[in-house]
């Protein structure tokens, strides 16, 4: 049928144990349309597109592809139909080359030489520069996304699904991606664009469908709808902004980095190069940056999980601590919320009271450990207090960490660290993947902590979050940290340039392997 929509979903329903991910979802996509699928974390967007791509199967409902009723059994069949998908978490193999990675993603790659030629052709046509012989582990995150997109495009898709593509891009890279998508739409292809970033959707998309709790709660035209209206559709209630209690009154520097440089055994690591930074009591300092620019190495150096050669490179309250480990750094008043919640911040199989012990043992007055023995009364009591104070939705201190939702687990971890009454708190990705309600309370807690006199350092990819929370900001790029700027005196664009590496020094260009791809 000529004028049938490209894709029509009717009544798609999908149930997981304990969670109704999709509830009678209807969705219609036309040719040449850029359609946003909007909703916050946990609304069911990922599940829906996995059903479209054949990774999951719906419990009930129908799918019509270009007017014909279809069952999509697996990704290979989806690709044959003409559906391509770029996942949020890339399916790339670090130690293999770009060409090998693309070949693995195609059902019929043919000869390597022919495919390399096609890669070059497609990537130049759409302005997605790529070198087929480079190993993926040498590529930046933005470049890796290009590999994913080119891999998709080689299959000539008529529907391209993009799952949260911009969370790993600098603002300038986002603009370039949008140009590519508009070009593809102009060729008659349909783009299904999943995101929770309202300004981007308003800039890019023709139509938006809003999901909440697995259900379609509304459709709108992003170009004529305000961001606030869309946000309220997503959340279902009125938004409230966190209360900032006036300007920060910065006290003595709690944390100071002096020419911090790291080395690593890991072949794929990004080393920190001569970083300088200070965070004072009573203020919140942020470090923005796209993943893969050295955040993990910086965090490991800050927490003490990796020691640095010169003790004075890291100072807590003036004390050189570069050579001492996490336990002693906590003794000096530092607390730390890592990026990985399950597996680093908590042990997934252990209960909340046992997980309280992970950092609680360093504070003697809590009395969790005595004469080498663990005192469960103390650990359970502490865990219960954290659960109560931070409104963690868990059955009690005996619940295992793995059974908590992402937002609640993060609330527990942040609560556990904050209730140790630290003088310095280092937080990584505080609200990544956390629903709006928990996000708001976490951000409020951070603000309250800093106003109470603690120094807070936030390392995040989320510029909105950083602009909301921080007094000062810097950017990390290829292991270097920029000068800090007052948040009130800067803009997203300016930070975006810094994130793209425009620090203004020639050394940075030498850091790039191969031609300078960014900015």
């Amino acid at each position, binding site marked *: 049928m000529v004028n049938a929509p490209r894709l029509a979903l009717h009544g798609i329903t999908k149930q997981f144990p304990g969670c109704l991910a999709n509830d009678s979802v209807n969705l219609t996509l036309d040719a040449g349309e850029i359609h946003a699928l909007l909703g916050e974390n946990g609304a069911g967007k990922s599940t829906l597109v996995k059903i479209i791509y054949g990774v999951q199967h719906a419990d009930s409902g129908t799918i019509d592809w270009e007017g014909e009723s279809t069952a999509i059994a697996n990704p290979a069949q989806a690709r044959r139909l003409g559906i391509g998908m770029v996942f949020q978490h*890339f399916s790339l*193999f670090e130690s293999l080359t770009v060409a090998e990675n693309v*070949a693995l993603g195609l059902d019929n790659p043919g000869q390597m030489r022919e495919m390399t030629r096609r890669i070059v052709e497609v990537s130049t046509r759409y302005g997605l520069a790529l070198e087929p012989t480079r190993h993926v582990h040498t590529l930046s995150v933005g470049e890796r996304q290009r590999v994913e997109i080119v891999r998709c495009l080689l299959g000539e898709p008529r529907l391209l699904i993009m799952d949260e593509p911009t969370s790993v891009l600098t603002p300038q890279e986002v603009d370039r991606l949008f140009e590519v998508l508009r070009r593809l739409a102009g060729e008659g292809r349909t783009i299904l664009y999943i995101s929770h970033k309202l300004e981007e959707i308003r800039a890019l998309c023709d139509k938006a469908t809003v999901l909440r709790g697995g259900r379609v709660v509304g459709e709108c035209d992003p170009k004529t709808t305000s961001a606030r209206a869309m946000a309220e559709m997503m959340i279902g209630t009125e938004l409230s902004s966190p209360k900032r209690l006036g300007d920060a009154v910065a006290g003595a520097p709690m944390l100071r980095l002096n020419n911090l440089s790291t080395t690593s055994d890991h072949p794929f690591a990004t080393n920190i190069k001569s970083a300088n930074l200070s965070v004072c009591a009573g203020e919140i300092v942020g470090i923005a940056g796209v993943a893969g620019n050295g955040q993990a190495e910086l965090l490991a150096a800050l927490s003490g999980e990796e020691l640095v050669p010169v003790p004075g490179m890291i100072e807590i309250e003036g004390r050189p601590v570069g050579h001492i480990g996490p336990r002693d750094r906590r003794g000096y008043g530092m607390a730390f919320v890592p990026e990985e919640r399950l597996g680093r911040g908590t042990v997934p199989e252990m209960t909340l009271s046992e997980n309280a012990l992970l950092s609680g043992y360093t504070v003697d007055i809590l009395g969790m450990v005595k004469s080498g023995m663990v005192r469960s009364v103390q650990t359970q009591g502490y865990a219960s207090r954290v659960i109560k104070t931070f409104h963690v939705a868990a059955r009690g201190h005996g619940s295992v960490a793995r059974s908590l939702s992402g937002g609640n687990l993060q609330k527990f971890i942040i609560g556990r660290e904050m209730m140790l009454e630290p003088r310095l708190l280092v937080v990584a990705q505080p609200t990544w993947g956390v629903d709006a309600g928990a996000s708001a309370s976490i951000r409020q807690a951070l603000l309250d902590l800093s106003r109470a006199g603690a120094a807070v350092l936030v390392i995040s990819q989320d510029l909105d979050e950083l602009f909301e929370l921080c007094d000062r900001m810097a950017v990390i790029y290829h292991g270097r940290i920029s000068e800090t700027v007052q948040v009130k005196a800067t803009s997203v664009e300016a930070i975006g340039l810094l994130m793209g590496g425009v620090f203004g020094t020639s050394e940075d260009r030498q850091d790039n392997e191969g031609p300078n791809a960014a900015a």
Partner: protein
Amino acid sequence: MIFHDVIHELTAILVTTVFASTPMLYAALGELVTEKSGVLNLGIEGMMLVGAIVGFAVTTLTGSAIFGVAAAALAGAAVSSVFAVLTLLLLANQVACGLALTIFGTGLSALIGRSYIGKPLARIPQLHIPQLTDIPLIGPLIFGQDALVYLSVAMAVAVYWFLNRTRSGLILRSVGENHDAAHALGYSVVGIRFLAVLFGGAMSGIGGSYLSLAYTPLWSEGMTAGRGWIALACVTFSTWRAGRVLLGAYLFGFFTIAQLHAQAFGVPIAPEFLSMTPYIATIVVLVLISRKASLVRMHAPACLGQVFNAG
């Protein structure tokens, strides 16, 4: 006269090194493919012993070494399939299952082998080309070996080719590198790993059969004496690169045989101490390779030993 003796001695050392290395080369090549797909199979010792006794038994019963070796390969694969089911389908811990396989294989081979202890068997024939084999030193080395030795070298080349030059090899490597990504791309992680494990089992079986059909043509309990573990060390030593497995197997084979030559030479060290050399050498080599953690991490299949559940 002395020169002649030295050449003779040198030839003996080289030739016996080949004998000693061949079982480990087979087992190491098999384990390499298995580990490249992301599976760590510690049951090599058990699989080799099963291969050794089955090869011996079938050769004795049928009179044909070809049937014997084929049966050994099948037996090794069969035993490894138990490991595959446990680790790939029932998601059990790979280290524990590998150890279980070793214990079970050792016991099973002893059970099957009790009626074959002390039975003699003719060694499988070696090549003899009139002019070529008689060349001093390289003659017997290159032109005087048995079929299994030539096959082992051919397999080394084949494994290298498979892993680095074919699409199937690329897919196998990707499964070991990032099994979630491979699954997302539509590849059957479990299926590919299963085949890799079976291949490893078959190769270990053949390697074991070499011991009982060529190296010392007889059966005795536990005759692998740790060679399976040394083959494992070989794979680590090679940093998962096929070319180096060949080098490693011959190096370790030399260690196992050198002490026998030293004893024959009358080196004034107690035989028990000399017997320790292959094991101590293995530790030393392992330490030297492992020191460079970055090298290991770069080449080791990233998903080695991790459980995969598609769910």
